[in-house]
């Protein structure tokens, strides 16, 4: 039973997670709902699972509501939120796609391209505010004729204006070429009127692109290129208006200007435009409305340098008029009301509060009842229909704070957003402004955030502040899905306290074929035997760094002491030799570069980190395909090391409900989709999921820019080799040991004394005497 729960989360449940939510009656939602039902059954299973006792603490899942609902955190609430995605046809390349809004629905026109025109078809995908969903093969299309080439909204109605195009062959140049016409379809996709556009030239350079019909029946459109030649130069970009009778009322040249059509609060349609300078920088934005009676444009709003950048500089800005004095505008944070100067007066709907991964607004329509319909594109550029209404009653919500460092926010945000969308009764709040001392004080007092990224606090040293994650993986065959070696990095003393979502590998490369293995002694022998070197390794060129990097791999594996007996080896010829080498090759000032100095024989070795697969290509290019990645010296030979991004933990005083939230969230974070979203951030390293790690390797391509501290960014171009990357990575992963350190207190002792020695303030003998005394005292206290 427990296995079922876990597998559902890792395989089935995540498949639905990043696809949006909605009414379970909806057509395409059946799969999602099906998963929800499975999940619902799962909840019962988990309750049964609690009978096993404490082991199910983190295996118990949050109950999901019977039907999806939005939370009520904002002034507006979504009553419907559905993905607007076309059917996925195998082997299709290209194919146009356009969205439009009705008064109660959202639609998508998708041109499916088969191998030939006979196999091509036009799909109209529809979702409604009632959660109904349909995908229609447009019936008015007869084989290869009567195709739809574009679609636009008809404000205030569920009819749509579509674009038709016929090619007419003629020897007379003026009569031949493409002939265009608009045709209006009703709710049943029946054509109710046709408007020929005989005034348009037939060469394709002035083809209707964006189309919108106002409530008076005037058809507004912008033009672009649509034709038989694959031209890449500019089209002629006009804004044109056709009367309900089909007469061209006006035409304005906006060539080179970004344009979109927006519906206003009163059923009119306005032109939104965004001119750019010669360098392509946006310089302002304008909202203008044409008077169909006079053909003249009226300026409704204009924003430039003095206005918020979201209104004029951003590529994806979108606004319309809510009333004559109020803007309704969308930015990356959410939907807002603003005055006509662009100052926000009220937040309408904040994307992050509702689990929306917003990328771009496609269209907004203000309904007569005060509701708002919109279509937005998410992070993956997929369309989504959102139907908003004023929030009637604020419902209780359980808030859970997740403390993260600012740099890690985007790693976790997609999973947090999905959790918040999925569970409207709960809200995980990502907080990035914690002061570390205050955070630790709060946690020590049993308060503060429930979820903590231990990059903020440290992990092992604060074990008592964290709750063991018993049951998170209990009884599951998670080893098939996750990389055990990586997940074990979340353990303290053999018990899982933290969830590690990504990891890195660390090793040493030398410029020679021999040796291929070394322990501490042979490592020092090899340095001694190399008379050409000027430094030992890249990076911080200090005695302490040399010792900490190469001679210390935790209390149980190091060259300086025996933790079991509590004795130290400082007063020995071995330590004096290491000290001498450090003193010879590690100047306290200056830093050693990676790459060239080692290849020229001046540096003994380089330490490298593998946190993304493309870095392996960078190292291959730098050090050569057959470089000797010998690894670090250790007590029993060469070793590569694995280390995790800092584990996520749960506050030890979390309530039962908070534990369920944490357990559910961790599973979402470790799901395939959750991990895939995280990989988009540069601070996410190698995934702990086997399938996602493989995807990461497969995503290395000519555009990859491997970047790590110490190396400049390059673009790989043709110099990538996924097979080499995979072989290198999996080989190192198989051999890698967990990276261990001395306890912080011991490191501080070493640092202080070695710095004093290097600065010449104490002699070698005094150094050894002080190190022996302080370190043995520490060991005695600990043992």
């Amino acid at each position, binding site marked *: 039973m427990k296995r079922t729960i876990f597998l559902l989360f890792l395989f089935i449940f995540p498949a639905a997670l990043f696809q949006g939510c909605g009414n379970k009656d909806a057509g395409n939602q059946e799969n999602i709902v099906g998963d929800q039902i499975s999940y619902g059954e799962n909840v019962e299973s988990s309750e049964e699972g609690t009978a096993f006792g404490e082991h199910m603490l983190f295996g118990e899942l949050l109950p999901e509501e019977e039907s999806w609902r939005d939370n009520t955190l904002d002034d507006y609430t979504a009553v419907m939120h559905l993905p607007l995605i076309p059917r996925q046809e195998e082997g299709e*390349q290209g*194919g*146009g*796609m356009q969205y439009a809004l009705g008064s109660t629905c959202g639609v998508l026109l998708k041109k499916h*391209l088969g191998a*030939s*025109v006979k196999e091509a078809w036009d799909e109209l995908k529809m979702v409604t505010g009632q959660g109904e969903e349909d995908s229609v093969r447009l019936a008015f299309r007869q084989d*290869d004729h009567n*195709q739809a080439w574009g679609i636009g909204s008809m404000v205030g109605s569920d009819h749509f204006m579509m674009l038709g*195009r*016929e*090619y007419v062959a003629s020897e007379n140049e003026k009569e031949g070429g493409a002939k265009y016409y608009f045709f209006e379809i009703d709710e049943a996709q029946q054509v109710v009127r046709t408007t020929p556009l005989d005034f348009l030239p037939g060469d*394709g350079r002035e083809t209707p692109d964006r189309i919108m019909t106002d409530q008076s029946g005037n058809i507004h459109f912008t033009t*672009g290129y*649509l034709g*038989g*030649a*694959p*031209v*890449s130069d500019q089209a002629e970009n006009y804004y044109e208006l056709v009367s309900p009778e089909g007469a061209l009322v006006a035409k304005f040249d906006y060539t080179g200007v970004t344009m979109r059509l927006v519906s206003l609060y009163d059923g009119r349609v306005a032109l939104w435009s965004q001119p750019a300078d010669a360098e392509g920088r946006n310089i302002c934005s304008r909202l203008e409305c044409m008077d169909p009676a006079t053909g003249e444009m009226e300026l409704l709003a204009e924003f430039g340098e003095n206005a918020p950048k979201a209104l004029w500089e951003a590529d994806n800005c979108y606004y319309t008029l809510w009333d004559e004095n109020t803007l309704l505008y969308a930015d990356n944070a959410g939907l807002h009301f603003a005055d006509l100067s662009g100052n926000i007066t009220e937040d309408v709907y904040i994307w992050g509060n509702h689990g929306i991964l917003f990328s771009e607004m496609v269209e907004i329509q203000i309904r007569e009842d005060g509701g708002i319909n919109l279509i937005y594109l998410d992070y993956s550029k997929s369309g989504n229909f959102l139907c908003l209404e004023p929030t009637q009653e604020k419902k209780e919500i359980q808030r859970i704070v997740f403390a993260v460092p600012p*740099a890690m926010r985007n790693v976790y945000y997609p999973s947090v957003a999905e959790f918040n969308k999925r569970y409207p009764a709960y809200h995980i709040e990502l907080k990035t402004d914690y002061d*570390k001392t205050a955070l630790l004080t709060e946690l020590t007092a049993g308060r503060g955030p429930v979820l903590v990224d231990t*990059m903020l606090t*440290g992990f092992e*040293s604060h074990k008592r502040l964290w709750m063991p994650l018993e049951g998170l993986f209990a009884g599951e065959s998670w080893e098939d899905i996750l990389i055990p070696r990586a997940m074990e990095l979340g353990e303290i003393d053999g018990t899982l306290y933290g969830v590690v979502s990504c990891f*890195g590998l660390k090793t040493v490369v030398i410029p020679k074929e021999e040796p291929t293995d070394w322990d501490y002694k042979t490592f020092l022998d090899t340095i001694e035997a190399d008379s050409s070197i000027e430094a030992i390794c890249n990076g*911080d060129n200090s005695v302490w*760094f040399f010792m*900490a990097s190469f001679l210390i791999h935790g209390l149980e594996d190091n060259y300086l002491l025996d933790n079991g007996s509590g004795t130290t080896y400082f007063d020995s010829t071995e330590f004096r030799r290491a000290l001498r080498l450090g003193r010879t090759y590690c100047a306290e000032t200056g*830093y*050693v*570069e*990676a*790459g*060239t100095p080692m290849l020229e024989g001046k540096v003994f070795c380089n330490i490298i980190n593998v946190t993304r697969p493309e870095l392996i290509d*960078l190292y291959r*290019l730098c050090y050569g395909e057959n470089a000797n990645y010998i690894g670090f010296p250790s007590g029993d030979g060469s070793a590569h090391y694995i280390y995790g991004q*800092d584990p996520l933990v749960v506050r030890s005083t979390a309530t039962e409900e908070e534990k369920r939230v944490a357990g559910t969230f961790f599973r979402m974070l470790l799901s395939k989709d959750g991990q895939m979203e995280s990989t988009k951030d*540069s*601070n996410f390293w190698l995934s702990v999921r086997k399938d996602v790690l493989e995807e990461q390797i497969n995503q290395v391509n000519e*555009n990859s820019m491997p*970047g*790590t*501290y*110490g*190396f*400049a*960014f*390059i*673009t790989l171009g*043709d110099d990538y*080799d996924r*097979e*080499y990357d995979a072989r290198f990575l999996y080989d190192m992963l198989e051999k890698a040991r967990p990276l261990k*350190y*001395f306890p*912080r207190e011991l*490191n501080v002792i070493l*640092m202080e004394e070695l*710095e004093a020695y290097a600065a010449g303030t104490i002699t070698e003998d005094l150094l050894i005497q002080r190190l022996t005394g302080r370190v043995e005292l520490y060991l005695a206290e600990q043992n």
Partner: protein
Amino acid sequence: MMKRIGALGFAVVLLIYSGFVSWAAVCGSSNSPDGAHDFSVCKRADAGYSVDKGTCVYIYGWDQNGNPIYKNDCRISDRYQWCNYICKYCNQVNDTQGAHPHYVKTVHSVNHN
């Protein structure tokens, strides 16, 4: 398939890498397990830039004769964001390597599969 390592690519890497340059030896944060800075975290600046990669001409549909009909309203751009390496424990910005551009994504302005 193993790819040839271009001599040019190798030379480029050697020429342009900027190397480990400077960091204070001791990290002030008690979170650091070994007391050293760990400049493995990229802190993104608000600023970034786009590189216009030109027009993406794509097949919008087949006409009634089976000929491809193209559209050229899609522009491709590579998005970059300026980043600095910071110590993951104490947030100290590494000021020697300087800000580096971080490739974020390649964007097609129009979704056409």
